[in-house]
């Protein structure tokens, strides 16, 4: 019951937000929220730590960008092409990575994603190399709604994200999701119960990759460009942090985490300037360029003191109050 009220409030805020804030920034926030939720499907509900999600996010962005700019595809097919790209890379990467367990899985995904990064760096005609892919048109939704209007675009993106989130919730609560949970809790047990664990893991991996692709493709359409930043492993790290801050294995956590981290990334420079003025230490002025340093610090604090994340701590607190 409480959950439903929470979602309604969040949805109401999301509906009102573009009239208060800057719609393009808000749309970008939604994309990262979706990206983090997609990632959480693996770490939070299947127990697999992928260190390569930037590959799906970025590659889908490049494919969608090319589809809209160079192949002349409409908006919907552009996004679909991005999703397909994410799913395909996810299928290949997943099939290889699930051959090893635990920490090796993470290292393999990281290494394979680095291959995608080098590929993007080299394929200059497709990705624009160091310059990135510029001037991606937004097009029209179903040929009718002009998406060059930022507010209209925001609501379309909100629609996409709500649908994708509904899919994730449905997946988690489905029999399939229960098997994934069983694998997370005790893999040998799931095997002994007769489940083809590899098949389930692979399907979860592909689903997560496809949704990450959807997020990446949508982000490219919103901003109109795609760069190497999105395929670099720091992006994979960032999405892990978003999920960790919000709460791994909670449905709403990654969204909250994404909003916090992206807002932090955007505002850090301003806060640095403020700190420099208050404290008189010049060095704080440079903090805006050293986002990674702050991200690293948050990582350390979260892992040491705050492993359940914000929503996770909240649930734990609420759980304690209830009489057993």
């Amino acid at each position, binding site marked *: 019951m409480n959950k439903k009220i929470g979602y309604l409030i969040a949805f109401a805020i999301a509906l009102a937000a573009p009239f208060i804030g800057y719609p393009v920034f808000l749309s970008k926030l939604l994309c990262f929220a979706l990206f983090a939720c997609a990632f959480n499907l693996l770490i939070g509900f299947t127990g697999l730590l992928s260190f390569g999600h930037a590959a799906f996010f970025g590659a889908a962005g490049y494919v969608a960008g090319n589809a809209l700019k160079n192949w002349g595809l409409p908006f919907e097919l552009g996004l679909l092409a991005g999703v397909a790209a994410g799913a395909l890379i996810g299928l290949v990467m997943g099939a290889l990575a699930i051959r090893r367990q635990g920490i090796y899985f993470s290292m393999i995904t990281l290494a394979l994603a680095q291959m995608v990064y*080098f590929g993007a760096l080299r394929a200059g005609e497709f990705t624009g190399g160091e310059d990135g892919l510029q001037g991606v048109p937004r097009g029209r939704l179903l040929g009718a709604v002009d998406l060059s209007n930022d507010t209209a675009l925001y609501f379309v993106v909100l629609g996409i994200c709500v649908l994708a989130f509904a899919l994730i919730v449905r997946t988690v609560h489905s029999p399939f999701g229960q098997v994934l949970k069983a694998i997370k809790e005790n893999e040998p047990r799931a095997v002994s119960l007769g489940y083809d664990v590899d098949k389930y893991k692979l399907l979860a991996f592909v689903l997560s990759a496809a949704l990450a692709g959807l997020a990446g493709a949508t982000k490219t359409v919103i901003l109109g460009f795609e760069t190497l930043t999105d395929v670099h492993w720091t992006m994979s790290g960032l999405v892990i942090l978003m999920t960790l801050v919000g709460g791994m294995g909670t449905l709403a956590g990654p969204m909250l985490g994404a909003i916090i981290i992206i807002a932090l990334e955007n505002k850090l420079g301003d806060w640095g300037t403020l700190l420099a003025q208050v404290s008189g230490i010049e060095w704080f002025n440079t903090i805006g360029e050293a986002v990674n*340093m702050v991200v690293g610090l948050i990582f350390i604090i979260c892992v040491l003191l705050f492993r359940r994340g914000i929503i996770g701590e909240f649930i734990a607190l609420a759980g304690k109050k209830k009489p057993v």
Partner: protein
Amino acid sequence: MEIFGYPLPMIMSQLLLGLVNGSFYAMLSLGLAVIFGLLNVINFSHGALYMMGAFLAWMGIEYWGLNYWAMLILAPLMVGVFGIVIEKTMLRHLYKLDHLYGLLLTFGITLLVEGVFRSFYGVSGQPFQVPEALAGATDLGFMVMPNYRGWVVVASLVVCLSTWFVIEKTKLGAYLRAGTENPKLVEAFGINVPLMVTLTYGFGVALAGFAGVLAAPIIQVQPLMGQNLIIVVFAVVVIGGMGSIMGSILTGLGLGVIEGLTKVFYPEFSSTVVFLVMVVVLLLRPAGLFGKER
């Protein structure tokens, strides 16, 4: 003389360069394997600590008026002490949890350390002179070998093989191997396992620091020098498996050589060949060349 239409000196010089890179892979993957064996932690910050070693060496020469040889000893020691502090204050609290938290913590440390160096020194490389005793080159007849590169291969081989010797053939190594198998039992025999764990981590990262000092005159000393390296080393570890010390050394050197040869024959693939080898190994021998997983 030519092989497949390529001049021999060119092949030999890439081969040497491959061996040099392979030495770094070997030292780093060896450190990762030793740490993983006892701590069950994959040390993501290995690349950042390698960078730290190189930077400390540069600072020692630039600011403190010391020479290369002093820093070759001092910088790894300082990196080792830094590692011990990390282990004592942070990593220690994560041993009982899932492995992934160790990876995430050291990932955070990587970003923090690289970020701090970056905010002071930017991303441009710092100049680092080859020490005088090793400047110049020797004509070996079939190729001209820069002395420093030869020194890197020899020094890292000596360090790697001594590590192998200590772990596999001495009593200290026996304690270490026993601790890897069953820490509780070893502790019951009166051996201070927590101390051993701390020192092992310190030693593992000191190896990374040592590799950093060796690399400083060859590779530009800059805050992000360890970023791509650590991912390649992860691939090396996946290929070799972390079960065997000698396995880590051989895999590291072997992949360096393969990478060097790829630079001659298919330069386009030189940055990804290690990952391609990893894919092939995963398909044919999922546990890794020297691995005995689970």
